[in-house]
Each structure stands twice: as C-alpha cells, then as structure tokens.
C-alpha cells in the first residue's frame, strides 16, 4: 500500500516540467534553445502589424534582427517567437516595447491587451513611442553588437530619470491611467544620427522626445513639448532629478533639483462650486556649478537664484496645465486629486468633469530653495577679489540671515 501511495505521489513530479521524458507539459525548454527577448518593436502596416526583435543566432551567436508581419500583433508575435533565430524566443524578461506612431494611434489597446493577456509577459514592460521613424528602423539603427540595442534602450530609461527629460511609464501604468482617466502619457523617443551617447557601433542613437498623450479610444495622439513634459513630471511627482541653468544678473547658476514636493488643494466656494485648483510645489536644489560673478554667501544672491528657480518651474507647470486644458484631457489627473481630497463635494457638483476641467483655474505656486552649495561658497572670481577672514565671513553671513 505504501509503495502504491509513493508511486501515486511521485506522479506529482510530472507537474513540475523538470524532466523532458516524463513531463506532461510543453513548457520544458533547454537553456541553449531559448532567446530572451529584452525589447521588441511593433509598427502598424496597411495589412496589419510588423514586429521585430533583435537577438543572437547560430552556433557563433551572430547578432541579427528578425521581423514578422501579420494581420494582428498576436499572429505576428506568435510566428516570430517560434521561428526566428533557430531558437525559441520568449518574452518573460522583456523590459521595453517600442511602438511606432501609427501603432500608437491606431492599435495601442491591442499592444496593451497582448501584454496583459500573454502568459509570459509582465505588465511592467516599459512602453515607448518612436517618433520620426518606424520603431523597426530605430531598432535596426541601434543594433550595434556592443552594447546591444536592448542595453541602449534600457540605458535610456535610466538616463531619462536622471536627466529629468521624461520617464518610461510601464504598460501597467498606461493601462491603469487609460482605464481610470481615459488618457495616459507615454514616453517618446527618436533616433538620431549623431551624438552617440550609448551606442558606438549602430547607425543611430536614441534620444528622448517628450511625452505623447494617448486616449483610451485610440483617437488622440498628441505630443508635449520639452517644457510641457517637464511640467507634467513636476505635477505628477515623477521628476527624480534635473539640472537647470538659471541666469541671475550676469551669472549662470546650474542647479540640480533634489527634493520635490507637489501638493494640490481644490478650492470650493460656499455654494459648493469648484472655483480653482491650487498647486504648491516645493523644490529644493543644490548648486552644481556657477559661471560669472556672484556671491552665494549673500542672502540676496541666493534669493535671486531661488526666485529664478521658482519662475522656471512655475512656467513649466503652467505650460503642462495649459496644454492639458487645451486638449480637454486630464492627463495630470486633477480629477483624481479632487476625488481623493473632497469626494463628497466632487460628487455633489452634479457636472461632468469633462465640462469643468477645461475652464478650471489652476493656480501654481512654486517655492524654490537653494539648500546646498557644497564646500565652495563663493564663485572663484569673488574668492580672488575678497580677502575676508573666516571670522569676518561668518559674521557677515550671520548678518545676512
């Protein structure tokens, strides 16, 4: 009896798919027969979709690009994954998906649906729209052997966060935003023939190209300017870092944003009408470099830098708000902010948000603060001219403060 039970229990091993001979599933794969696809592209064609991946093939692991078209993303990918490189391509570790403008305009939902539905893909695949060329051409242009195209694209995603020129929203974030707001932002990139920041061997480099605004119905595809993209990052609390050049009198201060806090306050009048949205941004910055003559130990000088910083960020935020309202698309999720802060008052408005939002006054206040100048307090020119003792500098500083 015990032997029979053991034999029965041993059948459970077949569930694991660990043995080619015994396994009951087709999920078994030998490591040397699989190709992990880290990035793929999709472009709309008249007769369907063209998908491309770049991988290594053959015994010598030659890098090459393979592509397949089909009436839908599912059919094209289905064929591409099984045939291309002499090994089975799998999407379990895909990091980024690049789609052409036409694909974003007409088939964005199909892309998201594929990622959500396919059992191998993760929802946290970064989504990028390629501007100015097809996604396939960009992938081909990037495809030097060292670093790989996938490395270049992944490198750009990190680079974006560090330089504050955008951020790669994942398929999950885009899908959630489309479902909940009807609109989403998607990071755009373009291929450039010069300034090879990442890719030494391919024909093209890749650079950020602001955000695209896409809608749930797939009818809208608008592109934000650099200023509007910066404003959107600020207002969505997605700006991690950004260096800004601020001109104050004759000096140019390069500051790096380090602490950002965005707070919203919907304002209702006595009748319960939403009169305006107050946005307060607190931006802390550190001085990275200074060109020209300026004395940052002087309070007046620092205040001037902070004013310039505030104005610069305010302009960006206002530009993003203005574009959002002009399009009538709440990609900054002001509705969500209002719903979270005052759900009862919002429900009592009795009007659709799409009617309220375009004309809603949005008041942006930015409080910039220069928090750190590192060890060098003065610009070199000042330091050369002044010969104050440390004690004199300290008392002067105390007087200022």
């Amino acid at each position, binding site marked *: 009896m015990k032997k029979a039970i053991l034999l029965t229990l041993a059948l*459970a091993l077949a*569930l694991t798919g660990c043995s080619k001979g015994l396994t009951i599933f087709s999920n078994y794969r030998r490591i040397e027969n699989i190709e992990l696809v880290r990035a793929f592209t999709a472009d709309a064609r008249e007769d369907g979709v063209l998908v491309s991946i770049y991988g290594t093939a053959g015994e010598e692991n030659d890098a090459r690009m393979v592509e397949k078209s089909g009436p839908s993303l599912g059919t094209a990918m289905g064929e591409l994954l099984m045939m291309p490189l002499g090994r089975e391509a799998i999407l379990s570790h895909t990091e980024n998906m690049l789609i052409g403008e036409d694909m974003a305009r007409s088939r964005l939902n199909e892309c998201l649906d594929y990622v959500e539905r396919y059992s191998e893909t993760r929802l946290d695949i970064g989504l990028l729209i390629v501007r100015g060329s097809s996604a396939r051409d960009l992938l081909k242009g990037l495809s030097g052997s060292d670093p790989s195209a996938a490395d270049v694209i992944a490198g750009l995603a990190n680079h974006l966060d560090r330089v504050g020129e955008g951020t790669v929203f994942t398929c999950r974030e885009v899908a959630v935003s489309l479902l909940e707001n009807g609109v989403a932002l998607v990071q755009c990139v373009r291929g450039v023939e010069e300034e090879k920041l990442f890719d030494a061997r391919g024909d093209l480099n890749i650079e950020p190209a602001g955000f695209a605004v896409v809608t749930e119905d797939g009818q809208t595809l608008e592109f934000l300017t650099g200023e509007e993209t910066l404003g959107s990052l600020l207002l969505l609390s997605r700006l991690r870092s950004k260096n800004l050049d601020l001109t104050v009198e004759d000096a140019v201060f390069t500051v790096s944003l380090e602490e950002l806090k965005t707070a919203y306050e919907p304002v209702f009048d006595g009748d319960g009408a939403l009169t305006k949205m107050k946005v307060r941004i607190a931006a802390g910055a550190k001085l990275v470099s200074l060109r020209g003559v300026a004395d940052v130990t002087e309070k007046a000088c620092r205040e001037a830098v902070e004013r310039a910083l505030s104005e610069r960020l305010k302009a960006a935020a206002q530009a993003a708000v203005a574009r959002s309202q002009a399009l009538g698309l709440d990609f900054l999720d002001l509705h969500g902010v209002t719903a979270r802060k005052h759900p009862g008052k919002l429900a009592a408005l009795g009007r659709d948000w799409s009617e309220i939002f375009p004309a809603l006054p949005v008041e942006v206040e930015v409080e910039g603060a220069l928090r750190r100048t590192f060890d060098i307090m003065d610009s070199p020119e000042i330091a050369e001219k002044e010969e104050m003792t440390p004690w004199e500098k300290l008392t002067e500083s105390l007087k200022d403060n």
Partner: protein
Amino acid sequence: MGKADGITQRQLTVLIFVSLLSPMIRILPTSAVVFAGRAAWLAPLPAFLLGRLLLAVMDAFGKNVPEGAGLADMAQTALGGGLGRAFNVLTALWLTFYAGFVCRSAAERLLATVYPNGSPAVFIVVMLLVAAAVGAGSTKALSRTAEVLMPILVGVLAAVLLSALPDVSAERLLPVTLQDGKRVLYGSLPVFNVLTVFVYFLYLGGRVRKKPGARPRRFPWLAGLTAVALGVTFFTLGTIGEHLAVSMENAFFIVIRNIKVFGVVERVEAVVVAVWVVTDFIFVAALLMIVAEIWRTVTGAKKCAAFVAPTGVLAGVAAFFIAQGVFDFQKWSDVLIPAINLTFALVLIPLMCAVGKLRKKY
C-alpha cells in the same frame, strides 16, 4: 474511527486555514472589486464579522454534542434516521461535486497563468490521485501536513505581498467614503462565502479530541484568513487599480508576476503557484475525507477509506463535465457554486442543527 486518528482542535483549525487559502486567493480580489470597486480592500472586514457570527452560531449548536460525533451524526440524531440519512447523502453529493469544482478551478488557474499549452485533464487526474491517496489515510497525517506547511505558506505570502509594496499607490485605493459602505458590504459576500466553507469541516468534528472544559479555538483561522484576504485585495488594488483588476481573471497573479526585489530577484510567481498547488491539494484531500466520513456515518461502516476512491472518481467526473470552456466554468464559479454553497453552509446545515436543538436531541 479509532482514537489513534484523533486530531486536536488546533490541528482542525490549521487544516481549515490552509484549505480555505485556496479559494480565498482564487476569488480575490476580482469578485470583491466587482461589487465594491476601489473600496474592495475593506470588504474582508465585514466578512470577518459575518464569519465570526456564523462561528458563534455553530459553536452554540455543537456545545452539547458528545465526543466522537460530527455533523453527520448530528444530522441523523436531529432529523431522525431516514431524513437524517437523506440529508447526509444530499450533502455528500454536493461536497463531491464541490471537490470536482475545486479540482477544475485549480486546473483552470494553472492553465490561465503558467501552463497555457497544458490540458485541464492532467491536473485534475494528478490532483485527485494524490488527494485520494492522502484522503484515504489518517486525518492526523493530513492535519500534520497542513501544520507543517502553514508557516511556509504564510511566510511566502507575506514575503510576496511585502515585495509588492513599492508598487502600491494610495491613489488607487482612495477615496473611500461612507457612501461606499453598502458596496463594501456587497463586496464582502464573496469573501464570506469562502469563510462559510468551514462549516463542512465540522463533519470531521467527531475526530477532534476534546479536552474537558476547552473551548473551540477557531478565531485564529478566521482572523488569519481575513488578513490574507485583506492583504491580497489591498496589494492587488493598490498596484493595478480597480478597473484593471476587475478585467483580469487572476489579477493577484499578474501583480506577483511584476515583482522585482531590489532589481535582482524577479519572476517569483513560481512560489505562488506552489502555494496554489499545496493549498488546492490539502483542500481537495480534506473534502474527500469529509465526504467519506459522511458515507461512513450513513452506511454505519467502521472505516472511511473505502469511500474515498469512489468519491474521487465522481469528483473527477464532475470536474471534467462541469463546463466545456472557461466561460461556462466562470458561470459556475461566479453564480451557481456560491449560491449552492451558501444554501448548504448558511441555511440547510444550521437549520438541521437548529431542529436538533429544538427537539432537544443534544
């Protein structure tokens, strides 16, 4: 059933907890979000209170039941020989069908997530073979298995949920207002529906060694399951929001698939699949054991083991023929099974106990 196969109250509690993890993780968060929207993460709380109430009622009914008697004995005592047997047969048939449903749902879940090219038949057959082998054994062995596995299951679930924390956004969980109260109550029904399944485990009550004066300790499993339900719903909703969650069959699994720990460890869903398989196996084995216990009482046989294999075969038939495709199966899962379950666990069985009390049979 000899003394040797007796289990402690604690072991029964652990068996209930581990078994009910399976349906709890399967239905949540989608079934709660359908009713409660983004407030669904609060739905387990009213379900806990309703479950506590049902526990109190069942404990009150079972207060004077003699040691060695389970619900099947109570039914035959309360309703009389003929009617009591009929009631037990009806319950046994339902639980056999339910065991088949649990097998099929386990298979469908594996197909939808990790084995798209597999066939449900393979999972059903293997699951039933293993569960029948264990179900024909001692209750003690099954309970001990559950006891050993429980800390692992809880540890894995806690680790996985905590790893998902960086993706959780308050924006997807709020606002929740008083106006959502009614929706939260509706959302708690699917959770409560799972909690009511504990009633069937009282058929194993005759195997529990009672210490004089000791009170049943069922509160911990109820609190534990509520915490799991809360965690699964909270983290899933906080990560993908109500609209995406409601459109997905296995939203919790999709969230798990996205987990990355410090950018080093990823694709940890295999451990969640292991949790599913283990809990499904324990649950099915326990159901087969319960059904066999009912048949033993009905027939007056001395041992249960002989009833396990036929029950497993019938459950397998039910699993194969319950639905042709996933859409038919979904109808069973969303409407018919919960309705039949609530009829038995919330109406018929408590009613049977109440009749026994009124007739002063125990």
